[in-house]
């Protein structure tokens, strides 16, 4: 037993072991802390840049676009047109377009983009269009198509699930 103990102590007395171990252990921390600081700094920088770009975009939008209609401006009865009603689908869609929040439209457009990518159409479509991921760019025809399609579906769904007479 004593022999084993002496052997262990002899091995541990090698300065390369304990000192080297400490250097390596703290070395990992130092390296990763430096990377962490770099990431915090770059994150902060990019967040600022994006915020600035967003503010500039929203300021430009405010200056150019007409005032948006709010949900309270729109008669809700028109959207609830039942399948048997006289109101044509186009009118219901038009009304819905005005009243649905923009976030829904963005979500629908994103969902459509994902669906297109999942089906492997993305590279083909991108090649045909000559640019990559054209539907990802804001304000493109792709996004508008996605928005219209999504809103149309939503309106039909709402119409179908709303009891008659309401």
């Amino acid at each position, binding site marked *: 037993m004593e022999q084993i103990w002496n052997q*262990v102590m002899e*091995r*541990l007395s090698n300065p*390369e*072991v*304990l000192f*080297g*171990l400490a*250097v*390596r*252990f703290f*070395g*990992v*921390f130092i*390296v*990763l*802390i*430096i*990377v*962490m600081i*770099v*990431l*915090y700094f*770059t*994150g902060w920088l*990019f*967040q600022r*840049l*994006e915020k600035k770009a967003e503010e500039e975009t929203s300021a430009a939008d405010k200056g150019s676009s007409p005032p948006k209609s709010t949900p309270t401006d729109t008669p809700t009865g028109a959207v609830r047109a039942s399948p048997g009603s006289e109101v044509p689908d186009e009118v219901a869609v038009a009304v819905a377009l005005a009243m649905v929040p923009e976030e829904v439209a963005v979500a629908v457009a994103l969902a459509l983009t994902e669906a297109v990518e999942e089906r492997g159409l*993305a*590279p083909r479509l991108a090649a045909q269009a000559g640019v*990559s*991921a054209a539907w990802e760019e804001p304000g493109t025809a792709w996004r508008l198509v996605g928005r219209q399609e999504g809103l149309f579906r939503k309106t039909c769904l709402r119409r179908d699930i709303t009891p008659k007479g309401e």
Partner: protein
Amino acid sequence: MEALEKLLASVVDRMGIIHLDWRYIVMWMVAFFFLYLAVKKKYEPLLLLPIGFGIFLVNLPLAPLMGDHELFWIFHHYGVEWEVIPCVIFLGLGVMTDFGPMLANPKSLIIGAGAQLGVFVTFLGTYVCGFSLPEAASVAIIGGADGPTTIYLTNALAPQLIGPNALAAYSYMAMVPLILPPIIRALTTKEERVIEMKQLRHVSRREKVLFPIIGTIAIGLMIPDILPLLGMLMFGNFMRESGVVRRLSQTAQGELMNIVTIFLGVSVGAAMDAANFLNPRSLLIFGFGMFDFILCTMGGVLMVKLMNLFIKEKMNPIIGAAGLSAVPMASRVCQDMGAKENPGNFLLMHAMGPNVAGVIGTAAAAGLMIAMFK
């Protein structure tokens, strides 16, 4: 008649059954155990199945597989000894990894560093038990739960241990769902496990694209020895995030990854012949591997608890266990455990941060070991 007898004797002598002994049978049992884990239990089947079958094949007496310039020798020599396969796997891993959660919460890197605790404690333990310093380093890295890094480091420092080390690393990685939960439960209270974490901030595409370059500069300038691995990881991630080389990304994470996984699995299994495996050192390596895994998991969890003492928004200590770099299995285990404790708790993305930080942490530890011992 004598010639016929000689011919018969030589034919019989070339039959494997004549050379079969108990060691081969034991190795078959080991191989079947891995195949059972892969097929029946579905633990890391992509790795354990080729490894298990590789072990089985090389442990058939007289199999012409691992001799000079024989089939598995070629796989092993050019793939593993030349350190090609681990680096190509890191390329695929880079393409498959989303560093977003880590970029959104850079504190994860500290958790990844904390989870290297086991690596250093095991290093000391193995050294005291009679392994040389380079051998101790190569055994200790098993706890990082990163197969390619284990192979890379072992090959650089102690190539004679490549079989047991790689096998221990991959088999314990496959058992992450069994190893992690009891350790987490033992180290945390119910109140800690139900902590809900704030949603991570949105990480812009620009940040994600630039990270591989910034990360490579930051780490590469400090630990250049690990650049073959980490550089490939970052290269793969850059391909993914840039979005302009979709075909290359798909190949790297698909066909290429599958091909090298087959060669890696078979090569690792092939290094496990009876003479190489059935000795006390291999058993010690397996023992230390388990000890290492447990300590690394504990290190991650305890690091989160320590950080919680100083930060305002508390983190759920379950995610500390994901500091092991078994991506994404460790994160999935954390998610499942968190959801069991609190069904409204979604820890997956929070755990992915420490998980990918663990990959970087293990690579950093390996780089420091290589720098000191090579």
